[in-house]
């Protein structure tokens, strides 16, 4: 058991991948000498050399496209996209190539590329540095999408991602990079595809992942004071989604609130609300309520607090749910 920040847990996980899988390599912008703009790859080039930790030219499509080629020859490339807002130049390679390789090759080649993306808002940054594009990748069949919310998961899930035979988009909740937590380097976390009930409750279920898990927990805590027992589910994997765990929870509680930072409209919360409402239909005391960003470009930092889901918005959603 060691206490680590989420950022350093990922660093440690990557170090372990590089140690254990000689075919693994990191590639991205500024990940070498600089150690990445968030220092997540700090020390790794010094430790493993320039062939294993590769500073690439400044071109995201190039990073992902060449990673596919590396994977075809047995390598496990772990690519870094510097910020969420800069993954889009690589969107063509990700959706038309990476995601479809397994299908196109009749299962012979799964394109095991990992794409690490620091994502989400709340860091007071300028445009394009606070995006939550996970729904775009979730809707693209052929990708796994993992989002850790704590240091222990981060340490283990990045290793799971690197071991996956399918491509993985690994979203790192950047505003939680400095969140500390206990990491048990001996006992693996459950597989990413298994959602976790991180707080049990009886009266309502909040489903979320990544940066909003602490917010959901805090809201549940606050709701407790009103005598409401709220269960919180951390999805951990946004594609596939562990609907069984969510449905089981909602069949018990009868109420569902889903929250993510991405705009509600067309977000993955719609998938969760729709699927769970279908499967748990007769148990629903109230409609599934979604709390997400507004349907607008991510706002300037001065007002991002009003844009982001927070405890008050979750409590309000719970109120609306309990009003039925």
């Amino acid at each position, binding site marked *: 058991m060691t206490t680590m920040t989420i950022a350093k847990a990922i660093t440690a996980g990557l170090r372990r991948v590089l140690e254990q899988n000689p075919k693994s390599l990191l590639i991205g912008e500024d990940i070498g000498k600089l150690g990445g703009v968030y220092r997540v790859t700090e020390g790794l080039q010094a430790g493993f050399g320039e062939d294993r930790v590769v500073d690439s030219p400044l071109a995201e499509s190039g990073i992902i496209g060449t990673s596919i080629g590396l994977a075809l020859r047995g390598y496990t490339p772990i690519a870094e996209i510097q910020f969420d807002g800069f993954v889009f130049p690589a969107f063509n390679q990700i959706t038309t190539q990476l995601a479809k390789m*397994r*299908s196109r090759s*009749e*299962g012979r080649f*799964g394109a095991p590329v990992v794409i690490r993306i620091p994502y989400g808002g709340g860091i007071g940054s300028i445009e394009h540095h606070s995006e939550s594009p996970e729904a775009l990748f979730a809707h693209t*069949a*052929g*990708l*796994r999408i993992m989002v850790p919310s704590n240091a222990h998961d981060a340490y283990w899930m990045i290793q799971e991602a690197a071991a996956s*035979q*399918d491509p993985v988009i690994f979203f790192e909740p950047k505003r939680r990079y400095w969140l500390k937590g206990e990491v048990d380097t001996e006992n693996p976390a459950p*597989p990413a*595809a*298994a*959602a976790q009930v991180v707080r049990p409750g009886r009266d309502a279920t909040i489903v979320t992942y990544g940066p909003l898990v602490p917010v959901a927990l805090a809201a549940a805590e606050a709701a407790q004071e009103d005598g409401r027992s709220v269960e919180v589910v951390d999805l951990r994997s946004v*594609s*596939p*989604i*562990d*609907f*069984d*765990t969510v*449905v*089981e929870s909602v*069949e*018990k*509680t*009868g109420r569902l609130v889903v929250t993510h930072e991405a705009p509600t409209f067309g977000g993955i919360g719609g998938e969760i609300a729709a699927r769970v409402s279908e*499967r748990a*239909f*007769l*148990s*629903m*005391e109230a*409609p599934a309520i979604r709390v997400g960003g507004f349907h607008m470009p991510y706002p300037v930092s001065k007002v991002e607090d009003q844009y982001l889901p927070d405890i008050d918005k979750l409590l309000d959603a719970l109120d609306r749910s309990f009003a*039925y």
Partner: protein
Amino acid sequence: AAHSPAASGAAGAAAVVRSAGPAMASILNRVLAKPPVRKIAKELGIDLSKVRGTGGGGEVTREDLISYQAQ
């Protein structure tokens, strides 16, 4: 066989099936009912948990509400 499923990767790996379905829900004393029935019950001031459900899995139906009222 020759063609392995395209997206089995993404779709097939969901966690172990753990949901026990409505049966579990009734054990947990969660009343099963569709929203319009809940609405009627509320309007009539009926506590749904007092109503015996005769639908599939113990679902409370409109008819159940009527017979409950008739009691």
